[in-house]
Each structure stands twice: as C-alpha cells, then as structure tokens.
C-alpha cells in the first residue's frame, strides 16, 4: 500500500468527509450520545479480539510490552512538558495539562491504524492492544504531579492563604480515577472476556464484534472528523506555538514508538507502527475530564484544540502511513 492509497481506506475517507462537512458549515451532526455509544462498542470489540489472541500469546513479550508501554507513558509527557516550558512559552499549568494528553492514547487513531493494516491484509502483533490499556493512566499522573509542583512553586512566591486551598486537591482520589477510568476498565475487561470465554462462545459474538467493526469505525470517524474540524476556529486563540507542538509532539512520540516497537520489542513493522501510534496519538477521552478537575488552572479549549483539532487529523492522514514506512525502513537497517 503506497502512501496515497492509505488515504483511500473508507475510514479515512469518512474522516475527511466529516471535516469537509464541517468546513462547508453543513448541518450534518450526530445525535447526542451516539459517538459515546459507538466508542463503547469499539473498545469492547477491540478488547474481545485482543483478548482472544493474547490468550495464546507469549507471556514474556506481553510482560515486556507492558513494561515499555509504562515507560513510554512516563517519558513522552515529560519530553512534551520540557518542550512547552522551553523559554517559558507556555505557563506550567497549561503545559502540564496538555502534555498529559500526549502520554496517553487516542483509541480512534489506534483503530484507524488497525483498519489501515487490515484493509491491506497486513498481519500485526496484538500486544499493542494491551499496551494501549497501560498507557491510559501514567500520563494522567504525570500531568497532576507537574501541576502540583507548579502550584507549590507559585504558593511560595505568594502570600499564604490562597495557595493552601489549592493544595488540598485530593490527589489520591485522582490517582484512583486514573486507573478506574471507564475506557481502561472496558478495554481490560473485554480482553479478559475474550481470553476466558470458550472459542465456540466467542464465535457467536464475532458477527457483532468483528464483522461489522470496520463499518462502525467508518461511522465513528465521520463524527470524529466533524469534531476535529470544530476545533479549527480555536486555532487563533491557541497560537502558533501550541499548534506546531500538536505536530512536532506526535513526530517525537511516534519515532520513540518505532524504536520501542522494532528494537526493544522486536515487533514486525506493522506492530511497530501500532506502537508508534500509541506514542504519537493523544487522548481526548480519559485525560480531558481528569485535567478539568485536577488542573483547573489550564484552559480546556487548548488541550481539546490540540489533541482533536491538530494531532488527531495529523496522525490519521499523515502519521499512520508515515510511521509504517519508517518502521519498514528502520527494521531493514
């Protein structure tokens, strides 16, 4: 599949359709709840599939995948924070909140990458699915810790009283939430179901979880296209620094992912590309609500503009084929 062909897979075309519809100000819109419902379906389906395959997987590699996923989830947001704080361009709270999103993963991007591979009939490892689960949480924690440090620093430079109240944010509860997040639980649970249920039982579920999957993904990307294009009008507010961060950061995260996938985990180029997408994509499901409460000082419009409006389209259109080529090239070295 050449770079251009990859744009012609139905899911990506529907994404483009969604963007287009919004740009021409069409009144095409999804009923409330439909997108959320579809994403529950997609997480369930991918979990079932991954679980059934992981049941026969190598425990050693699975463990290593988990380990490196965790490391990626810690390292990527730190790099992002350093970039954003460089020359004090972005204030520490916004920097912490934004970078947390990049440590986590966008399930829609990941699923589009799988659609890219499956449409071309390319096999891939299923360990990246479990890695996706792992990466949902550490980034949230990093974001909260960075914001807490910033808050402490600010409190010192200010008279007492105001600062202390902020301090009392219940971090324990927030950590718990990072691990009991709905998509983590559903994905992990569906994987368990896929691994525990008998193959005969799973076969009855496949028409729902496997066969109609690609079509449902198209519908989902149509909505994501609309949502992504909605953020364009906030580009001016976000400013050039942030917008370019939305493109540079996935390049860094994806490159790290290719390295982790090929060198550290020994995956095929297809598997390494999926790891690259874990690295390059930015969450807009689990992380935004956590940051809203945990880092109220940051502006939610910034992080949604970046993750949905910049990084998501970048990955879907450019990142996926590019990291796949990069993984092929790097594997061949």
């Amino acid at each position: 599949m050449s770079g251009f062909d990859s744009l012609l897979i139905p899911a990506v075309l529907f994404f483009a359709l969604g963007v287009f519809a919004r740009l021409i100000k069409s009144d095409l819109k999804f009923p409330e709840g439909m997108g959320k419902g579809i994403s529950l379906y997609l997480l369930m389906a991918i979990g079932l599939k991954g679980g059934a395959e992981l049941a026969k997987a190598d425990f050693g590699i699975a463990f290593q995948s988990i380990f490196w996923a965790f490391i990626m989830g810690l390292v990527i947001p730190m790099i992002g924070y350093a970039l954003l704080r460089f020359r004090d361009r972005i204030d520490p709270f916004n920097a912490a909140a934004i970078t947390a999103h990049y440590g986590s993963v966008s399930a829609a991007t990941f699923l589009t990458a799988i659609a890219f591979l499956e449409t071309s009939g390319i096999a891939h490892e299923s360990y990246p699915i479990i890695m996706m689960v792992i990466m949902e949480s550490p980034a949230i924690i990093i974001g909260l810790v960075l914001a807490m440090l910033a808050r402490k620093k600010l409190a010192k430079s200010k008279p007492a009283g105001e600062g202390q109240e902020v301090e009392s944010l219940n971090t324990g509860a927030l950590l718990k939430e990072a691990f009991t997040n709905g998509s983590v639980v559903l994905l992990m649970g569906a994987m368990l179901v896929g691994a525990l249920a008998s193959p005969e039982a799973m076969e009855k579920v496949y028409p729902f979880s496997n066969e109609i999957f690609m079509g449902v993904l198209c519908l989902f990307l149509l909505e994501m296209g609309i949502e992504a294009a909605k953020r364009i009008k906030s580009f001016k507010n976000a400013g050039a620094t942030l917008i370019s961060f939305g493109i540079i950061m996935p390049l860094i995260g994806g490159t790290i992912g290719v390295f982790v996938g090929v060198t550290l985990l020994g995956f095929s180029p297809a598997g390494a590309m999926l790891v690259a997408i874990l690295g390059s994509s930015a969450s807009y499901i689990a992380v935004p609500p956590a940051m809203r409460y945990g880092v109220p000082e940051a502006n939610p419009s910034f992080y949604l503009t970046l993750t949905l409006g910049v990084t998501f389209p970048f990955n879907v259109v450019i990142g996926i084929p590019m990291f796949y080529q990069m993984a092929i090239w790097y594997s061949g070295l």
Partner: protein
Amino acid sequence: MSVVTHAEKIVQIITSSSLESRLVDTFEEIGIAGYTVFNVRGDGDTGIQDSHIDGDTNILIMIVTTPESYERLMEALNKYKRKGQHLMVFSMNTEVLY
C-alpha cells in the same frame, strides 16, 4: 387561592460533567438529599461544550432548597470556585408546593 406554597431558593450550577460525582458527594456531606441534573450543551470562555466527548460535556444541576440549606450550599460552592474549579452558580426565588 386554596393552594399554599412555601418560599424557597433554587440554586443552579453549570459545570463540566467531570465534576458531577464530586459535587454530589459534597451535597451529601452538607445534608442535601435531592437534586436534579440536566445534560446540556453550551459555550463560554472555555470553548464550545457540545457533549460529543466526555471532556466536552456540560451539566446543569438544580437544587431546590430551604433558606437555611441555601447558605450552606452556596458556601460549599463558593469554596469550589475559590479552589479554581469552573462552576457557574446562580440562584432564584421560588414558591414550592408541599
């Protein structure tokens, strides 16, 4: 008129759905047992909130309350705001039919 009503307060809070469970816990702590939640959309300083993704979903919580609980509630909400949380809080007078 034969129907007797009682003067109370209505408090309405507009905020992100991510704060819902915490606010409800707060209500319980200060002894407020009843509330009603509306799923809403909106626009404001923090951008369009149109309820298509979780980080993007607004709720409006409405509480009908006696004048005494009203003060406790407003103080608890004020505390949230002073902690930096984004809540839009406003109240009205109402006549409640018991």
